[in-house]
């Protein structure tokens, strides 16, 4: 019975996430469009509301081109690795009180593990395409994701120390009982490091180097087309959603809000996640792109020391007051 309930939950969450992915693309194009004093998609349906469906159909029916010199097996596997690991990370996210597919004790570590695995998909895609641009994209991705993983992990250590748990539900509970109700204020440094690392981890502007279209054409997915390309795309958006959820859970108090909204227990959670997704788009519309070496310098020389400082600070305060 319990397995059935879990299956139902999985299906519900999967459907909701996929719908969000679809409309995240639409929302992105609209938001960036309006920020750039244009309209965004306007053709399919009123105000282009059916655009994601049209895109999906188009990508689905496109010819699947595989370069003759590509390493076929890896080439097939790479987008799946990306998508599956991105999807798996959703399993431990608590959407509202008592609703998480798997409420495991090492939720944060699990998410880290999954997001590192997703980067393997990118690296393998770059390698197996046997294209020079893809290869450079894969190289960049491996360097970038691995170094930003550290900063991200360290930035969450403060949260773990304050909550005393790696379980995401427990972290939310701990936040609700804390004096500020959210960890944003005591962990502001950690939050800053986390947000920057979050952008880098999901390969979004200003850290979208693995697919920097002006230098590497499309980076690791240069040789991909049709559905396989769409899988990468979905993985990227799911990654964004997961990272936003993680940020909301760890710093903004998860599903808790200033008042209860009757009947919609996930109202505040969704609202906060939407804000983060909007932030992604907003930053993309505003900032230029870093260069590879500058990105690494930022990660290793600024973010990791900051995160370490944050750990020391949190520890000191905790040992004095707590």
């Amino acid at each position, binding site marked *: 019975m319990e397995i059935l309930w879990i299956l139902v939950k999985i299906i519900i969450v999967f459907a909701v996430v996929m719908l969000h992915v679809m409309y995240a693309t639409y929302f992105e194009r609209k*938001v960036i*469009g*309006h*920020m*750039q*004093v*244009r*309209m965004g998609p*306007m053709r399919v349906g009123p105000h282009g509301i059916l655009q994601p469906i049209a895109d999906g159909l188009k990508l689905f029916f496109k010819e699947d081109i595989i370069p003759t010199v590509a390493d076929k097996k890896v080439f097939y596997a790479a987008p799946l690795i990306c998508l599956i690991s991105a999807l798996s990370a959703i399993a431990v996210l608590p959407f509202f009180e008592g609703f998480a597919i798997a409420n495991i004790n090492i939720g944060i570590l699990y998410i880290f593990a999954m997001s590192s695995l997703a980067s393997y998909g990118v690296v393998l895609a770059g390698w197996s395409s046997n294209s020079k641009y893809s290869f450079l994209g894969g190289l960049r991705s491996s360097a970038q994701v691995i170094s930003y993983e550290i900063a991200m992990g360290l930035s969450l250590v403060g949260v773990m120390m304050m909550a005393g748990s790696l379980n995401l539900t427990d972290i939310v509970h701990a936040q609700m009982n804390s004096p500020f109700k959210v960890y944003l204020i005591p962990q502001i440094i950690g939050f800053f490091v986390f947000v920057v690392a979050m952008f880098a981890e999901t390969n979004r502007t200003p850290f979208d180097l693995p697919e920097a279209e002006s230098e590497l054409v499309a980076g690791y997915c240069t040789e991909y087309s049709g559905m396989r390309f769409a899988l990468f795309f979905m993985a990227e958006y799911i990654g964004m959603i997961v990272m936003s959820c993680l940020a909301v859970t760890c710093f903004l108090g998860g599903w808790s809000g200033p008042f209860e909204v009757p009947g919609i227990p996930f109202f505040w959670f969704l609202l906060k996640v939407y804000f983060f997704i909007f932030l992604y788009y*907003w*930053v993309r*519309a*505003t*900032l230029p792109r870093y260069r590879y070496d500058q990105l690494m310098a930022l990660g290793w020389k600024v973010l990791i020391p900051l995160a370490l400082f944050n750990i020391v600070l949190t520890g000191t305060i905790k040992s004095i007051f707590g």
Partner: protein
Amino acid sequence: MKIQYDTKKSLVERIFLLEIVKGLGLTLRRLFSKSVTIQYPKERKELFPGFRGKHALIRDPKTGTARCVACMRCASVCPARCISIRFTTDEKTGGRKLESYEIDALRCIFCGYCEEVCPVNAVVLTEDYEYSDYEREPFHFDMEALLNNWDKFVEKNKIDPERYLNPFLRPRGLALGELPAGKRMDVPEEWTLEGQVVWKDGKAVSAREAAAE
């Protein structure tokens, strides 16, 4: 002039990423401003007279056919050599009779020289720019097609073919004496040499008015 710039930032600016926040503020403001694009097939941009678009031969309302007298000026001035004209010469009078007039629109570079040199205002580039096709054939305009283009243009834009005015048929700002007889048309005062505009006190006025004041 040496450029002065100061890219140094104060500590506050550095810590709080002020310049990035300002940029974010700008994009957020623009999110709520009106967009400048137009939705093309629904809305169309209004073109200015003299837009160099689809070719046409003006159908003379009196004769019902083209005004062209086969003087060959357009064909010889055309930099792309896309106009070809055939004519027969009357042995007795020496007058020419137009046999065919063809424009290869795919060769044309839309410089407008042909309409400018035409002494009788026969050929014109209309303000129609929507004539794409899947084949090459429809872009090879023969005389019939060119006259048809004109008819369609007249019908679509509801213009009076007698009064049709194009700045290339009668270039703005030229003295009357410089124009051949066929080009001495009635034009807005702004187009004549005497009535040309100058800037005075924050608005454009005709030179004659400006001199009078």
